[in-house]
């Protein structure tokens, strides 16, 4: 039962990864008793399961995910929201208003208008239906301030780090609130624009070097240096 790759080797779609009693994990598929790669990425095996960490992919909705989306259209009883996925999401008016929705009393575009950004949770999604969003939880709803940045969705786990080590470090150093949408959209809200830009810079560095080890230490370094620079500027 041979394996045809080294740990963390860059593989292309269609590359034979393993033969024999192996299971096809993420971004791989099984044909007979052979496991092939589906996407370009880094191959890895845990026990009998072969995985590929994709370097390029798009977001597929999953119930329970926190996402950040843009309202694209105001409908009769809700909004359509672009969540950077193959499917557009729906947000129902009654969910936002927290009471039954009456078209004669409520003007939907005054609650949320096209172009507004929202933090929402995927309430339901399956193959046959477009994803439904909900904002009826603390921390969800319309975004009023902060900056938005985009990250490849597959790299969100790396930005979070082991048990959230990476993200909490950035939050602490910059004093910013950071909301990571699983769909690759990130909201950074800080006291000053400089703080926000520092946090964005750190996240961009994580995205560019996501596959390397010892990244957490380098991010600590970066944050320290940049903060010192900011202090200097203030003192001048």
């Amino acid at each position, binding site marked *: 039962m041979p394996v045809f790759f080294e740990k963390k080797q860059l593989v292309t*779609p*269609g590359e034979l990864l393993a033969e024999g009693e192996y299971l096809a994990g993420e971004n791989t598929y099984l044909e007979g008793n052979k496991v092939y790669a*589906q996407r370009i990425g880094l191959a890895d095996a845990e026990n009998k399961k072969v995985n590929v960490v994709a370097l390029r992919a798009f977001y597929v909705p999953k119930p329970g995910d926190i996402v950040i989306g843009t309202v694209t259209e105001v409908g009769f009883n809700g909004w359509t929201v672009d969540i950077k996925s193959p499917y557009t999401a729906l947000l129902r008016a009654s969910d936002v208003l927290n009471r039954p929705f009456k078209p004669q009393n409520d003007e939907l575009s005054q609650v949320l208008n096209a172009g507004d950004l929202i933090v929402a949770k995927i309430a339901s999604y399956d193959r046959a239906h477009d994803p439904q969003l909900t904002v009826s939880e603390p921390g969800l709803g319309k975004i009023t301030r902060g900056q938005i940045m985009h990250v490849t969705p597959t790299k969100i786990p790396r930005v979070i780090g082991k048990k959230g080590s990476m993200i909490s470090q950035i939050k602490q150093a910059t004093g910013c609130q950071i909301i990571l949408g699983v769909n690759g959209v990130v909201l950074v809200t800080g006291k000053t624009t400089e703080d926000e830009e520092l946090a964005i810079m750190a996240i961009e560095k994580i995205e560019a070097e996501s596959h390397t080890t010892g990244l957490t230490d380098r991010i600590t370094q970066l944050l320290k240096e940049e903060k010192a620079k900011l202090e200097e500027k203030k003192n001048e």
Partner: protein
Amino acid sequence: MSEKPEKLIDKKGIRSDGRKADELRPLKLEVGVLPNADGSAYIEHGKNKILVGVFGPREMHPKHLSQSDRMVIRCRYHMAPFSVQERKSPAPSRREVELSKVVREALEPSVFVDLYPRSGIDVYIEVLQADGGTRCASITAASLAIADAGLPLRDLVVGCAAGKIDDTVVLDLYDAEDKLGAADVPVALMPNLNAVTLLQMDGILTPTEFETALNMAVEGCKKIYVIQKEALRAKYMTAKEELKEEVEE
């Protein structure tokens, strides 16, 4: 434009452009050339220059074209007015409509279309300069662009043609050979699965000649596949190199 040679292949077996019978034209591939597209690729195959942009997967527009059980692949093969000697009308010609379909059908088996139902991708193939064998070059580049868009694939698809000129079976015909030659056999292949996704024949060949041409094209595909994989890797190579350094440290 190259002048029409009197003989397509001389006694020594050298062709009018200096190649041997089983020699490919020089090939150059690049991935991720269009930042606005979700995936893109550029191919230079001999004098062919082709640009491919892939958009999606996204919601199908118009909506009635979407399929409830599978993703739809839409493909547009288009030749620029300046891609050939005589100005080509930019309106889609009969040939372009046919090639769009042929290329789409060559790519479709490689994509896991049933994973993302109700969505669609658009593959735009723009031929900037044509010199024979554009359908094969288009398939090679389009498959790379689809992989670059992050879509799950069974394997990359490679296209390559073989044909017959002056009673000799040769690999990878260019424009003059295609027009003056006796036959042309374009083939598209998924090399790792050893599956043919496109097989056409234009002209007349005996069964044995056909077999040699097919085998020759398959060998050509496999050669191109190596370059194709390398091109896809090159975009993410920085990733790999940095990783190596880390391991050595």
